[in-house]
């Protein structure tokens, strides 16, 4: 079984279904989450380094601030497994709440 991803890593991987540079990731994640998830620069940079080591993402051509990242097929498998896990959490949550008659 795969370990749950942190919210930040999950969103970074989603953002990289399209090639993006570091700051582009931070901006789109903030937008998608309506300003709830504001990734810090240190957090994002550290996550990108770790994800590259794990081969979940790779870099495209470009240097320094123009460096672009994109998700790998292994990374996509990880995201799919995570979506399945979140679905399980969500479905069970809904089932119980419905039984309580609150929804």
């Amino acid at each position, binding site marked *: 079984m795969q370990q749950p991803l*942190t919210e930040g890593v999950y969103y970074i991987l989603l953002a990289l279904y399209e090639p993006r540079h570091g700051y582009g990731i931070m901006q789109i994640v903030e937008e998608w989450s309506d300003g709830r998830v504001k990734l810090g620069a240190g957090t994002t940079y550290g996550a990108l380094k770790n994800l590259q080591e794990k081969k979940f993402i790779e870099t495209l051509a470009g240097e320094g601030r123009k460096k672009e990242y994109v998700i790998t097929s292994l990374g996509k498998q990880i995201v799919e497994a995570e979506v399945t896990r979140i679905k399980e959490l969500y479905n069970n949550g809904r089932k119980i709440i419905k039984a309580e008659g609150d929804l």
Partner: protein
Amino acid sequence: MRIFKFFFDDSKEEQWINDMASKGWHLKKIRFSFYYFEQGEEGEYEYRLEVLDHFLKGKDVKEYLDFTESAGIELVQKRLNWLYFRRHKSKGPFELYSDASSKLTYFNRMLSIYYLLIFINFLAVCTNGAFALVELTYDLNFFISVMNLLAVLLLIVPTINVIKRKRILKKEMAMFEN
């Protein structure tokens, strides 16, 4: 404005720099223990301090600084491994580490640096202390030994501070993911 100040605790230093900024004094540079401030609008900038991994290569440091720059973060000063960043308040609240797991990694990085510094200073206390004991005339060795002991004692303050912050964070992490 120039202020002479000496810090052994990074969180206190960051707090003081931000307090100055909220009064309209923005840190511009640091030379030795002199902090130079420029007057501006009150609370115009938010400052964050970060220590880099001591094994980080020059290329990786440059890459990180390019990254922070692209995120609208300005590097005010670099002192050895310590970076002094600021960001204009128009760009929103400024945090370098936004979730618990990356904060934990950062606390561990800080601790490994403090432990290394304590170890080096402690070694110096022992070797110089031993010289001073063998040859009672070696006043210089005795003096160095005392100075290093003082450094060890002063380093214990920020170390305990980081250990405390880490403990609080771990408690949170047992319940919440971020």
